[in-house]
Every structure is written in C-alpha cells, then in structure tokens.
C-alpha cells in the first residue's frame, strides 16, 4: 500500500518536471498516451519526429566498458564451441553428401539442379576453392572418407558463420530490451545449445541461412534504433544492411521468405507510425517510404538477381540437372547435345525423336514396361512425362499405315499430317481412348498400346504446328507442336501432377478435351536422329536472362512441392520440434562408429517451451493492467511495454518461422525448426528477464534482489551443466549406445524417441 502511493507520487513529480528531452521522457509520453486510454491511431504526440535528437543507447543502465567485455566473452565462447573439433568426423555426414557435392559442382562449373537458390552452395564452393579443395571428391554417400581432400575450409566457413549466431542474438536482445541480463540469458542459451553447434559444424545450408536471418533481424533492430535521426549515414547503413541480409537469406533457402515477411510487417508498422505523426509533412513521409522501397525491395531484388546471374555464368557446362530445363536453356550448356546442336532441321518420317513438354519443368514424353494398375483406366502400358534424360524417352515417327519402312520415302512431316508415335524401347504406340485419366478425371487416359507398331485407329495423332498453316514443316526445337488425337479430338497434355508410387512419381500425361492453347498441351521435338537427312547446325535462340531466371524459379518450386513424404519413411511432424521429440542422425548408427546426433539441448529447448507458455500469460496480465489503467510503477510499465512490443516482435518471428510448416505438404525435417528456435531463445531471454525483475511482487526489496540473482544464477548454471551433459551429441560419441550402461550418454536418454 505504501509502495503504490510512493510510486504515484514520483510519477506525478516526473510529469511535472520539465527539462531537456530524454528518451525516458519520450517513453513517459508514450505511456501517458496509453494510460489516457487513447487508441493508437490518436497517439500522435509520440516523439518520433526529427525534432528529437536522442540516443536510445543512452538508456542502457551499465557502462559500455563491461558491455564490451561481455560481448567479447560471448564471441570467444561461441567461436570456441563451434570450431572445436571441426574436422571430426573425417567422413561425409548426412546432407554434406548433397551440399558438398554442389560445392564441387561450382568448382567444376557443371550445371546441376537443386530446390534451393544458389547463394549457400556458391559460398560453400567458394570457401572450398579458397582453401585448396579441387572439387574432385565425389561426395557419393554419407560415411565416405575424405582422405586427402581439403574439406576443412567448407566446414570452417559454416562454423564461422554459425559462430555469429550467439553474438547476433545477444546484440538483438540487448538492443531490443536494453537489458544485459536478457541478452546474457539468450546468448547462454544459444551458445550451449548442442543443436545449434551440430548444425553449424558441417557443410550445410542451415548455418549460412541462420546467419543471414539473424543478421537481417539485427540490422532491422539497429535501423529502428536510428529512427530519431533519419537519413543520417548510420540510418542508411542499417537500412541497406537489412536489405543485403534479406537478399542473402532468400538466396540460400526459400525459408528466407519468412524473415522477409517479418521485416516487411515491421516496416509496414513503422510506416504506419510515421504516417500518424502529424508533425511530419507528406513529403517527408514519401521520402521515408521511398527510402524503404529502395533499401528493402530494390537492393535485395538486385542482389538476388545478381546471385542468379553469377550462378548461371559460373555453371556453364552440361551436368546432371539438364533435363529439368527447357531445350532453349540446355543449349547454353557446354557439352549438352543441344549446345551448338547439329541435327536434321525438319521433322521427318522414320526419325528417332524425343518430345519435350513446353510447360516449364514439363518433362519428356516417356513410357516404360509397366501397366496402369487396376482401377485406373484401362490396364495398358503407362505413358508419363519424365524429367530426366533416359532411353525410355525415345519415340519413332511413323506414317499411319504400317508400311513406314518403305525405302526412299523419307518424307517430311507437315502441319495437319496424321502420324503414329511408336515407343522405341517397348514398340508400343502412343494411344488414347475414352477412359478417365488417372489424376485429372476430366481428361482422357493416354497409354502405350499394340505391339511392334501394330495397333488400332486410336493410335493416330494429328500434328499441328502452333500458328502454322496446312503444309507447314515442323522445325525441330523451334516449332511448338500439338498432337491432336484423331478419334476423340482431344489434345496430348501434361497436367504437371505427380503420379503415385505405381507411376514412379513421374508426371501425369493425359489427353485433354479442352483445346485451349497452353504450354501444357504444346510440345517440341528435342533430339532428332534421321540418317536420311543431313545434319544442319542449329543455333537455337539463346534465351533471355529473365526467362532463365523465371524458368529456374518455377523448376525449383516444382521440385520443392514434389518432395512428398514417402509412405513408410519416418516423418518428422512440426509438433515434434519444440518439444525436442526426435533428432536426426548425422553420422553413425552402430556402437563401433563415430556418432553425431543432431538434437537440441533438452534443457534449453524445454526452457524455450516454458517461456512460450509463460510469455502469453505475462503479456495478458500486463496488457490488462495497462488497459484497465492500474497505477503501475515506472519500471513495471517499462517492462510491460518491452514485453508487448519487443516480445511481440520476437513472438511474431517465431510464429512466422514455425506456423507455415503446418500447412506444407512437403517432407519436413527436424532442422527446419532452427530459425524459429533462435527467435524462441531470444524471447526466452526477454521473458525470463522480466520475470526475474518482477520478483519484487513477491518479496520486499533486499530479498527480492537476492531472489532475482539466485534465479539468474540457477538458470545459467543449469544451462551450462546441461551443455556439459549433452556435449557428446555434437562433438561425437563412440562406444556403446545410450541405453547400455557403459555409454558416455548412459542415463541421459530422457525420451524414448531419441536415437543415440
């Protein structure tokens, strides 16, 4: 009772006091506006205009000297933990087999296909190149020994970038909450998390992605600290840096979109605030608006496009990814059969051809020795579209009558001609009939039918060149061709839907009764072999850079959504992640092998989980208290605002990086949670800090202080001790498995689902 009266006294005193504006004063004004129950759109007196020259940094209570020491300590510890035993184990671990291989592709300049944008792999390749790795290691499968190959550079890059995470987390929390305690808690959590350590130590995209995400958030936070002195050089610096890091995050993985969204929402909120500040003229607001467009949209976009430009320039040799791309795209690649291609110019009877769909990532017309299963149309041979180059993609062009092998009549195919396409490998004809297609029920089924080229009238297709007239010749590579089914009038169509297991997860091919001209129903002749006609060098029109860019994006997106979980495979579910339900085996299974297991430090993760539960309660209490206008002390109001605003930002970050996974159909892995985990750890820092500072609700001053210090100490020590307990997960274990008594991890298998 006495306490509350004194608080009110001091606050009235402060209101009456006039003096030089300080940030505390600004905060007070904000609070007052809140206390008066004004809706945010009316709170126009908040001091965010140019008139106030404030340094928000001045609010930090302790001297910068000790701050620097703490920062150095955090940096030292994080580098030490990440770089310790970086070359162990000396064999390929888990996804190193992909990303290491792709790094090698950059060094060898061979073209490949991957579902992620190229920046991460380019950096890996660059790091390898700089440290003397020659790109000759095949990275065939996990467990392969590196032997004499220089792999430490690539791992080192990832580990160094990963070491920045605790530092960034520390700085973000410090700048947000202006509390060393909160920052310290966060840094300890991230440093001591075995999961973060493990994921930083190998050749993976995740440390690079996490680095850019955290750097973007840090720049965003620093940028908003500069809001009292807009258009100064440091303001510009942080704005541009935010943009650069966003481009980096997006350039590594599409998960970077979530941080783009976070920054975007924050910027919209910021602009909304500026718009409500009636002391700013519309011209100034427009300047603010344009500056953000430049810094947060144009700069990242430019950089992102540049990344792709570099990608395409570096990778100029034909490689394993060719088949995913259009014929025009392939002609750029040295070593591809379409590079400076030489083949008969016009489609002729008796030719051996491959037919490619014009939809982006459309695939080659394909058939194989497998029938459609029972219940899916007629039980005839499957016809699909296939993305890889394969001998089963090869077809023969025949006349409708069976005497195509007449000597000397190597005639050319013309617009409007009726042809028969025979699958070279299985000698079945491309056949359509009035059965439902397997997936697109409104379309008809396409099958392989007949034997040795003998079939029936349903095997006849009319060739049409798009935009052509009767009698036009069919140009190889350059003509867009449609195949109209003679008997039913439908058009050969690739729906882009992936067939189930019985169709080997290839793409469905149907006959569409809707004759609309879409790329899905248009095809081109890619390979063309006909000994009776002379080969002519064809310079295919080189595609425009923007076309390549668009095409590669569509191919990536298709690839991503094509990563469906397999039926019998153990699949990680998003709800597993925050509770640290199950990790990932990075290396080793048996007790003789060197085992590394990606699993978050359970103490850290469960603390995060607890704070995710605690935070909403604390915010609810604080918000109701503010809304109801209870007289809170100055300090408590400050804490409430930190919880509401800064905590809200971090919670939003967590949500954005976590919730979308629930709606994703693709296969998910444990490591997808790491971006969200970093946000969650920062939130934990702020939550526990406010919680500890609220001990004076329970006890009177001297004791409450002791309780606070004790709580902090217990918190930090328990995290450190748990790190000591679980560090073998990251730094490798040998010997018996954890459920046996002799193991280093004996007794620490706290959940049955952990597999170490």
């Amino acid at each position, binding site marked *: 009772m006495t306490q509350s009266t004194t608080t009110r006294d001091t606050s009235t005193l402060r209101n009456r006091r006039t003096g030089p504006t300080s940030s505390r004063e600004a905060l007070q004004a904000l609070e007052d506006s809140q206390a008066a129950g004004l809706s945010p759109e009316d709170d126009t007196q908040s001091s965010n205009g140019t008139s106030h020259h404030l340094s928000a940094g001045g609010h930090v209570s302790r001297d910068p000297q000790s701050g620097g020491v703490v920062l150095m300590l955090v940096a030292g510890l994080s580098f030490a933990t990440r770089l310790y035993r970086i070359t162990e184990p000396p064999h390929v671990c888990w996804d190193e087999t992909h990303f290491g291989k792709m790094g090698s592709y950059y060094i060898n300049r061979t073209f490949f296909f991957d579902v992620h944008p190229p920046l991460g792999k380019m950096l890996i390749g660059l790091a390898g190149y700089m440290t003397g790795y020659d790109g000759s290691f095949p990275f065939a499968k996990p467990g392969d020994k590196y032997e004499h190959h220089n792999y430490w550079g690539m791992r080192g890059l990832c580990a160094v970038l990963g070491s920045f995470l605790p530092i960034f987390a520390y700085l973000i929390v410090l700048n947000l909450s202006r509390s060393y305690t909160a920052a310290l808690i966060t840094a300890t959590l991230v440093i001591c998390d075995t999961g973060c350590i493990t994921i930083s130590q190998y050749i993976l995209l995740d440390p690079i992605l996490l680095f850019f995400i955290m750097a973007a958030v840090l720049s965003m936070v620093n940028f908003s600290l500069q809001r009292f002195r807009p258009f100064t050089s440091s303001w510009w610096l942080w704005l541009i840096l935010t943009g650069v890091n966003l481009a980096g995050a997006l350039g590594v993985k599409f998960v970077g979109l979530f941080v783009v969204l976070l920054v975007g929402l924050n910027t919209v909120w910021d602009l909304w605030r500026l*718009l409500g500040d009636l002391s700013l003229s519309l011209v100034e607001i427009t300047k603010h608006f344009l500056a953000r467009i430049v810094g947060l949209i144009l700069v990242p976009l430019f950089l992102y496009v540049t990344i792709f430009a570099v990608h395409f320039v570096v990778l100029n040799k034909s490689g394993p990814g060719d088949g995913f791309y259009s014929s025009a795209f392939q002609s750029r690649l040295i070593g591809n059969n379409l590079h400076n291609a030489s083949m008969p110019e016009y489609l002729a009877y008796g030719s051996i051809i491959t037919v490619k769909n014009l939809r982006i990532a459309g695939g080659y017309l394909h058939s194989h020795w497998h029938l459609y299963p029972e219940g899916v149309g007629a039980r005839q041979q499957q016809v699909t579209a296939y993305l890889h180059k394969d001998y089963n993609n090869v077809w023969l062009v025949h006349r409708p009558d069976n005497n195509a092998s007449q000597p000397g009549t190597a005639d050319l195919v013309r617009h409007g001609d009726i042809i028969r396409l025979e699958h070279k490998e299985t000698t079945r004809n491309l056949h359509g009939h009035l059965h439902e297609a397997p997936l697109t029920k409104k379309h008809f089924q396409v099958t392989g039918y007949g034997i040795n080229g003998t079939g029936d009238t349903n095997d006849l297709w009319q060739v049409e060149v798009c935009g052509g007239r009767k009698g036009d010749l069919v140009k190889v590579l350059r003509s867009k061709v449609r195949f109209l089914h003679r008997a039913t009038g439908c058009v050969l169509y690739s729906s882009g839907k992936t067939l189930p297991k019985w169709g080997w997860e290839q793409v469905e091919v149907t006959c569409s009764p809707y004759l609309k001209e879409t790329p899905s129903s248009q095809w081109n002749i890619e390979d063309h072999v006909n000994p009776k006609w002379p080969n002519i060098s064809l310079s295919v029109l080189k595609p425009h850079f923007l076309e390549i860019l668009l095409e590669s994006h569509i191919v990536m997106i298709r690839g991503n959504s094509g990563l469906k979980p397999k039926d019998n495979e153990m699949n990680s579910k998003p709800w597993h992640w925050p509770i640290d339900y199950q990790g990932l085996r990075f290396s080793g299974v048996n007790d003789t092998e060197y085992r590394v297991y990606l699993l978050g430090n359970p103490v850290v993760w469960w603390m995060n989980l607890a704070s995710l539960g605690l935070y909403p309660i604390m915010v609810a209490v604080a918000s109701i208290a503010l809304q109801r206008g209870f007289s809170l002390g100055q300090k408590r109001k400050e804490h409430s605002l930190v919880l509401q605003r800064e905590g809200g930002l971090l919670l939003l970050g967590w949500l954005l990086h976590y919730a979308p996974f629930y709606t994703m159909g693709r296969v998910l892995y444990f490591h997808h949670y790491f971006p969200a985990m970093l946000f969650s750890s920062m939130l934990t820092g702020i939550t526990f800090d406010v919680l500890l500072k609220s001990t004076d609700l329970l006890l009177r001053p001297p004791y409450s202080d002791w309780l606070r210090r004790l709580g902090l100490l217990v918190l930090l020590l328990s995290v450190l001790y748990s790190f000591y307990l679980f560090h073998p997960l990251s730094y490798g274990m040998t010997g018996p498995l954890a459920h046996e008594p002799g193991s280093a991890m004996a007794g620490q298998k706290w959940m049955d689902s952990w597999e170490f």
Partner: protein
Amino acid sequence: MLQFPLVVTTQVDVVLVLVSLLAFWTRLSRLSSPNAVVFDEVYYGQFVSLYMKRVFFIDDSGPPLGHMIMALGAYLGGFDGNFVWNRIGAEYPSSLSVWSLRLLPAVCGALCVPLVYLLTLELKFSHLSALGASVLLLLENSLIVQSRFMLLESLLIFFVLVAFLSYLKFHNQPNSCFRFCWLLLSGGSCAAAVGVKYMGVFSYLLLVGVASLHTWNLIGDRTISHLSVCVQCVCRAVCVLVVPVLLYVFWFYLHLTLLHRSGPHDQLMSSAFQASLEGGLSRITQGQPLDVSYGSQVTLRSSASQPIPCWLHSHKANYPIRYENGRGSSHQQQVTCYPFKDVNNWWIIKDAGRQQLVVSSPPRPVRHGDVIQLVHGMTSRFLNSHDVAAPMSPHSQEVSGYIDFNVSMAAQNLWRVDISNREAESESWKTILSEVRLVHVNTSAVLKLSGVSLPDWGFRQLEVVAEKQSKAHSLVWTVEEHRYGTSQEQKEREAELHSPTHIDVDRKISFWAKFLELQWKMLTVKQEDSEHKYSSSPLEWITMETNIAYWLHSSTNAQIHLIGNPVSWGVAHISLLAYQLLAAIYLLRRRRGLKDLPDGVWAQFVCLGYVCVGGWLVNFVPFLLMEKTLFLYHYLPALCYLHLLSPALLEHTHTQLLSRSTHRRALGLCVCVGLVCVYLSYRTFCPLTYGTPELSANQLQALKWRDSWDILYRRR
C-alpha cells in the same frame, strides 16, 4: 388486477413478412420433385437410414448434428430407413416421403432470407438495404439449389446467421436485461454451426474475435467498476466459450445415444468401443472371463486401424527360403495379421516355466512385466522372433512360428507383457480393456504390425514384424476373444478352438472415452484424395469457373445444376473490392488526421467490415491452404457475407459519398437496373435450379455462359 380492455398492439414489418413468404415459396415449392436421389443425398441418405435403424457409423466429413437434423425430418415423415442409397438419380419409392426428408434444410434455407434482413438492420443500415440484401439472397440460384435437397450447407448458413444476429442484438442493447439471453443464443448457434460442419469453426472464431475486441474495449472503459467488468467478462466467456463446447459434446452424446447397434464401421473403433455396441463384437465378448491368465486362449487384435483392423495370425506355411529380391529368410512358419475372423487367430498364453496349456484353478492372471510364451492354437508353434530381416521391412526383425531345423538357430520365444495403459486400467491383463505391447525378451524388440501386405506366398495377409525402439500406435495389441482353455490334448484343443465362445456379462466404457475416441477417429481417418469430376479450386469460385451437375433426368434433358446467379455473384465481388479500396482510403486519411466520416458512421462502417469482409475472409482463405477435394458449394457461406455487404455499401455510398441529388438519383437508377438484371438472370437459370421445365439442347447451349461450365446434353 387484470385491466380491461386487454389490448395487444403489434407492429408487423410487412416487407419482412413478404420477403419471408417469397423465400418459403422459392425454397419449398415442389420440394419433392425430382423424385430421385440428387447429388450428395446419396451420401447423407445412408446416414439417415442408419439413424433410423440405430446403427453406429462414423462420418469423417463432419460432426453429427446436421445428420441428426436430417434424420429428424425423415423420422417425422415416417421413413423406415429401408432404401439403398447407391446411385445418384435412383428413383425414390412412392412409400418414401421425399418431402419430409428435404423439409428441414429447405426451411432453414428459407429462414436465411429474413435473417439477412434483420442482420442488416442490426448492422445499423436502413430497411431499404435490408430489403436489398434479402432480395439478393432470395434470388441466388446456388443457395436455392443447395437448400432444396438433403444437404448441410443451408443448415450451416442458417446457424451462422443466427449466431451473428443474436450477437449483434446483444451488443446493440447495452442496457437490456435480456441481452445475455441473446449472447447465450449466439453461443448456442455457434455450437450448432460447428456441429453441422467443421467449416462452422471459421465463423465461430470470427465471432469470438469480434466479441473479444468488444470485451477488450469494455476492460478499457474506466467508468465501469472493476467488479462489474469481471462479472461481464466471466458471463461473456461462459456464453461464447464454455456453452458452445458443452453443446458440441452434447451433439455427440445424442449421436452415441441414438446409435447403439453395431454396424459396418465398427472395425474402425477399438475393441472396448465395439463391445459397448449392441450386437457385433459384444455378442461374442459378453461374458468372457476378464482376467487373461496362463492357459487362456485369446485372439489378439492390433489396435492400428491402418490399413485395416486385423488379428495376429499364423498358418501352416513357411516363409520362402529366398525372397524375390534374393534375401534369405529363416524358412520358419509365417506369422501374419489377418483381417477376418479365423480359427487360426487363436493363441494360447503359456507360462515359460511350466508345460501345461490349461488354466489352473484358481486361474493365475498375467500381470504387467510377466514373461510369457505364446503358442499358436492350431499348429502349436511358439511365437518367435530373431535377428533375421523381416520379409517386407528389412530394417525390422522377422516374427515366426518357431520350427527347429537344427541349424543352430535357437528358439527365442519369450515375450514380456507391457501393459501400456496400466495407469488407467489395471496392472493385470484384462480382456479388451488392456492395451498390451509384447516385448521380445532377447532383443527387446516390440511386436508390430508393419502395415505392408505380403506377396502371394503370404496369401496377401499383412506383415507382422518386431521392431526396436519405436513408439508408434501400431504396436499395441488387445485381447478380443478370450476363454479359459480346458483341454490338454492337441486334438481336443482344436475342437475347442472351433467352437464359438460366449457367456453373458455387460461391460461399459464411459461416454467421455467414447466421445474422445470417436472425435479422434473422425479427425484422423484419412480421406482418399481423389479428384472428383466436379471438384474445383478456391480461386475458381470467385469467377464461378465451374458448376456442379446435381441431377439429370433419366430420359430427358431436365437437369439440376449448382450454378450461382452470375449477376449477383459479380455484384458481390465488385462490392468486396470496393469496400477494401474505400476502407484503405479512409484509414490512410484518418491516420493523417482527416476524418471524412463522423465517428458513428465510421464505427458502423468498421463493424460492417468485421462481419462481412471478415466473414468472407475466414470462410475463403483457409480453403486456399487445404489439400482436400473442394467443391463450389464450399464457397456459399462466404458468398452470403458478400450479399450482406453489397446493399450496405451502396447505402454508404448514397448517404456519405454522394452529395448531389442528381448523383443520388443516378445511383438509385443503377440499383434498380441492377436488381432487374439480378431478377432476369435468376429467371434465366431457373430451369437449371428447379429441374423444370425441360430445356432443349439449343436452350441449354444458350445457358452455357462460360465455356468451362459442364452442362449435360442427352444424345437422342
């Protein structure tokens, strides 16, 4: 003291009455034609039949309230449930009162029209707007079609509208003593909406959102005492949160009370659940001994219902020495899981330390942690597992009936009983109730149904394996049939196994357990994603790219389609766009301190946005993220919100934006022309809405306004 004269004065809104009458006329006239099964009636009809027969079923498409309402209609009409719902277009027999089956959805559909009228008034718009909204709804062909048959959408829309209407009544009468009755009604209708279709959840969440916003403002109101705020908050929470949940459970209570007989969907449920139903499993299991003891003869059912429920099984056939892919096996007797009742499903529980296979007296019950052997009843082989790769899942261990081939492969036939629900049930192994994991003692692997079927050599039965360290649900087994073995000799025992089991006792599981199991099953049973001929994607709904053919007369061109009224459909979406634009402009200008609208009008405008645009958003956007098969009728609730929006927006334009009388008159004229167009297009599509009159092929061709519409022509 009674005072005379006794005077009753009432005010009748003639327009409202008129509109309602029209609504009833459009929805209820000639309700029993066509006298044939139309579209999804074939689906819901079977459930109505099952209600009539009191047979238990699971419908994973939604909660049971909607089905029960339709069943109520059928019950009142005297339907006995004897009709085979197998094909769209099948004629109803004359004994069946089609009219009564379709009545309740049609009435609800008709009531939506006056509800929209009242709702517009509660949003504080004029009677003219209210009339406009109700006319739009009245003349919406798609809503008429959807209301006239045994379908759920009209029920859903009805309850959602009631919920919002009563909530707004509650909100608009701050000092009335009945206001909490309105709130209670609102909560109740929310529960009903969610009870009809899960889709109702979206509208419910919106209502909760609006209510919490209002409550938040209430908390901020410092003129009200703390106590009063607390009381109000608690009351609101009870009405909007607690009551709906309780009611939702109540629907299931009704459902389970009504359906007490066993039926075709039994197998999806646990043994305990099945035993609580009349007939079926309970007939077999009644009176079985409860405690599983040494010497008990049991059948073990896998608790995984994927791919199908089955029993642990063995038979006189061995694993092939080499599989097709060249891997070797132990060549011992096959152990599988078999989805049919069979004498080979019987196993005998044997004490590892003793020889006899009969129950001693008194019986020695098996408890958690005991080590047992399982002997196959017909072949006397021991259930065995060893470090040999299983046939289809090579990462797991093979499970076999042990045969000693003298190849230094010792028997490993000890299993530890691990009762996983011992906290809830008991430490000793109970028939049906206990969920048991059988842990192989030598390897600590767990007996598991892998879910893969074996090839021909295994008679296409399901594979059983032992797997280490997995926690899936598929490795829990329950004893279903059980009796105490009495015959020591193999021959006698075989005869005993062939004889059926039965004695009588009743066993019940609690309603909550049944509710939770049923709800869980309904949410997790996988629907097969197959594309339907008339399915569509959400973005196609906005432009009405597709229609759905509901019914085609068996010999003529008479047909019914779900096609919206294209004109009002267009108007609705234009007004949606217009509202968003207008709202953006207002918001930006207000933020700069330029208040175009007086506060009262602004509040009205915002409230309109919450209800209508919000309602549209929550009923549309979630579908974009869904992967199930979607149809045009999923869009109808969202469309209703838009029909509410258009007239209100016009009124706003009229009163706030247009100041000159010439402009206002021009707007009035436009509205009149628009209404005439709406009416005309309603008339045009009437033949496809009511199925009469029959149109010629040319007329049908003329109705095909979009190429993508699928209108059927009969070739003559």
